[in-house]
């Protein structure tokens, strides 16, 4: 199972890095722009008279703050998930150790 997971993880890394190695951004105004922003641009292109009627209450003041908050989001998620899996792994190992121990 561990081997299968490592292979799957390798595939994930390959799929994520392949676009960086291929010349896929040739001719694009902004390489690797977000799809959400592109959809927004498509709206404004097709409907130039549309005005957003509400704007975000708060915006991260600057790109650094934005990347900090994205990193925080990922860290919170990965931290909790890692805590859970580590806890259960430890419990599973202890159970196994308990059952294989020969009682006196």
């Amino acid at each position, binding site marked *: *199972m561990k081997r*299968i*997971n490592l292979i*799957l*993880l390798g*595939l*994930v890394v390959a*799929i*994520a890095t*392949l*676009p*960086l190695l*291929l010349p*896929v*951004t*040739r001719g*694009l105004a902004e*390489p*690797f*722009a*977000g*799809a*959400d922003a*592109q*959809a*927004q641009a*498509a*709206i404004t292109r*097709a*409907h130039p008279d*549309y005005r*957003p*009627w*509400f*704007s*975000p*209450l*708060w*915006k*991260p003041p600057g790109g650094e703050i*934005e990347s900090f*908050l*994205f*990193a925080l*989001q*990922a860290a*919170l*998620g*990965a*931290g*909790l*998930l890692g805590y*859970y*899996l580590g*806890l*259960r*792994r430890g*419990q*599973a190992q202890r159970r196994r150790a308990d059952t294989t121990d020969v009682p006196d």
Partner: protein
Amino acid sequence: MHIMEGFLPPLHAAAWTAVAIPFLVVGARRITRITSEHPRTKLLLASAGAFAFVLSALKIPSVTGSCSHPTGTALGSILFGPSVMAVLGAIVLLFQALLLAHGGLTTLGANIVAMAVVGPWVAYGCFRLTRPLGLGIAVFLAAMLGDLATYLVTAAQLALAFPDPVRGFLGALAKFGGVFAFTQVPLAVIEGLLTVIVVNVLNQYSRNDLDELGFHDRVRAGSSAALKPSTA
């Protein structure tokens, strides 16, 4: 798949919010029931939310030369049933709307419907249908198709609000679908693979939690999604 703040006309924003609310209510009730009947699975439930939290923060490059992110909602959907993901997905979307100006409050309802309702339900249905093909294959297809469904719904929501001046809804659907769909395919594969990895690890170390949820029984019996009453 985040529709930006203010980028749905008020009527559409209100309608999608109205669609999302019943799913949130049912999801909240379901979470209350799960945590009271199966208290030992609380941490797993939180972890399923955490999985969506981390995956939707990762903007990954795609072969189209643009970036997008997975949703991570399939894991919780196949473990706990799709309705809980309405609430967990909404928390993720609210965090991003308030702190990252990513998505928005007026578009929260539409984004919840896409990411926290349709995606999880498609994932769940797909999981149930393809389960006989093997656990790994079913999890992979569920997560991949759930992810793609989310982006397809976003494209449809935008096409409804902004039909093409000449070719109408379908023309706009093709346009917005073109922005999201091709970019999303490799990311949906990534989401499928990551979800399989987590389910594999859960299967190995967290068997008790899965049994408590009747995960494997439910799958074998092919019965309704109802959770077994706790035997503990």
